[in-house]
């Protein structure tokens, strides 16, 4: 399968199965457009294509162009047949998301945590639970050395004592267990101060800071419990945290969410860049149909145009990065990683404040999706196996999608929440994903 696309004045073709990408001139694009995404590509140019294109190009040139494409096919870089990659054995944990706080000091209108408490009681995770979670991760990780722990919520800074004790506990056992822990914390920024910024800078490998963009956009959704906007209150802490990360050279992202209120989110992203933030992410909100902030089909053209506009801007200015336009075409993940994406349910899991384990942060508290607990209780291997069996080859929509080895099959939680089944990806998310990938490829290839 191939996919042709254009951007920033260039034409390209991706060979989905081999990962090869080629730049095309107008003739090359016209030839491949006529052959179609699935081929087949014959040894010589079919008379119908020759006749159709002879109105624009001389026949010898068409034959020459065809022959160049045929050479790529013969090299295994165009119309490469699908390969049955065998997904590696699953069942060993790699990463845990610790919901250290099912409570929050903001009340954001789109929060999948249901304003911080995930539909259950508000509560903080005691250190004993977090310690048991670290023990579980170490024990279930087999021979894996690099393990990841993400402090999430709600708002994890409400449980900073637990976070600090957990980091100290894990670090103290790294040598003994032969593991290396990487920590990430996602915060709304309200409780950031000089002390905790310094601690986070020393201990967190990545810090994710939430801010939606322009003050009016942010404040329409990200509100304090009294209903006031949060922008003025959170900005100083977020700026100070980002400056600290810049100074120490450590990773951070300022992460916004765009909704039906701002499907043309580029001005919000630019606002973040003007504030001096350099590593940016802007996520499409995922909400049930009918929610006033949910993105609908009618928003898709606006969102796609926003990605194009962002691409043109990023080509001109290099002072910020956009998470979804980062792409590594050389040292990126191997094909086995690309078969099934985030690893939810079999290598990635989330832990509630009470110590219950779910396939990921978006499944926490969802009936029918409990994997086990951190206290040594039974483990739902069958559920874990269902997640591990979901690959881009086993999901019908993905198997025929050109983006499969870049996207890796999308989000299982979105599939369940919006389609009611794990093996049917969320179509609107797919449309945006494919566009982001085209933009990322164009930006990289036009460098």
């Amino acid at each position, binding site marked *: 399968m191939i996919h042709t696309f254009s951007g920033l004045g260039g034409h390209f073709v991706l060979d989905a199965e081999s990962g*090869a990408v080629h730049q095309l001139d107008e003739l090359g694009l016209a030839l491949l457009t006529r052959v179609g995404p699935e081929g087949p590509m014959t040894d010589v140019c079919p008379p119908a294509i020759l006749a159709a294109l002879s109105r624009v190009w001389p026949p010898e040139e068409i034959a020459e162009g065809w022959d160049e494409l045929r050479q790529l096919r013969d090299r295994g870089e165009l119309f490469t047949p699908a390969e049955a990659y065998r997904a590696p054995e699953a069942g060993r944990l790699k990463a845990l998301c610790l919901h250290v706080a099912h409570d929050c000091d903001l009340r954001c209108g789109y929060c999948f945590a249901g304003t911080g408490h995930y539909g259950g009681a508000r509560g903080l995770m005691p250190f004993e639970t977090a310690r048991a979670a670290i023990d579980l991760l170490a024990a279930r990780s087999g021979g894996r050395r690099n393990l990841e722990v993400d402090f999430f919520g709600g708002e994890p800074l409400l449980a900073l004592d637990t976070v600090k004790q957990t980091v100290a506990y894990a670090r103290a056992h790294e040598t003994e267990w032969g593991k290396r822990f990487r920590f990430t914390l996602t915060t709304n920024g309200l409780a950031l101060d000089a002390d905790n910024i310094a601690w986070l800078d020393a201990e967190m490998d990545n810090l994710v800071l939430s801010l939606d963009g322009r003050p009016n956009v942010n404040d329409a959704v990200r509100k304090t419990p009294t209903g006031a906007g949060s922008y003025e209150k959170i900005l100083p802490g977020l700026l100070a945290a980002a400056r600290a990360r810049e100074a120490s050279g450590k990773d951070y992202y300022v992460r916004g969410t765009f909704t039906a209120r701002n499907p043309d989110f580029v001005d919000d992203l630019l606002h973040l860049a003007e504030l001096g933030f350099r590593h940016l992410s802007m996520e499409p909100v995922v909400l049930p149909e009918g929610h006033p902030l949910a993105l609908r089909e009618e928003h898709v053209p606006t969102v796609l145009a926003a990605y194009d506009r962002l691409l043109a801007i990023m080509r001109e200015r290099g002072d910020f990065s956009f998470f979804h336009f980062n792409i590594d075409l050389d040292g990126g993940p191997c094909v086995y990683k690309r078969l099934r994406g985030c690893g939810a349910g079999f290598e990635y899991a989330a832990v509630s404040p009470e110590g219950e384990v779910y396939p990921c942060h978006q499944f926490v508290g969802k009936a029918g999706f409990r994997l086990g607990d951190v206290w040594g209780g039974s483990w739902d291997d069958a559920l874990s196996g269902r997640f591990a069996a979901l690959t881009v080859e086993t999901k019908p929509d993905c198997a025929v999608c050109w983006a499969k080895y870049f996207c890796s099959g999308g989000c299982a939680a979105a599939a369940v929440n919006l389609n009611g089944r794990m093996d049917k990806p969320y179509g609107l998310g797919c449309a945006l994903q494919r566009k982001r990938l085209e933009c990322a490829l164009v930006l990289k290839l036009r460098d």
Partner: protein
Amino acid sequence: MKHVKTLVPATLKRSAQNGGCGECQTSCQSACKTSCTVANQKCENTRIRKQPSENQQFSIGN
């Protein structure tokens, strides 16, 4: 070639020969938490992948 220029070779096939060590970052950890993208991640093992003979210590799904 006049009409086509290869910008990226067949990297997926190459990665199939030496990949699968299972050490790379889980994607949702990075920045998004809602819209997973894998292709922008680093291979933890690039150096070794480029020298296949050193890769024997890793087994699939480790």
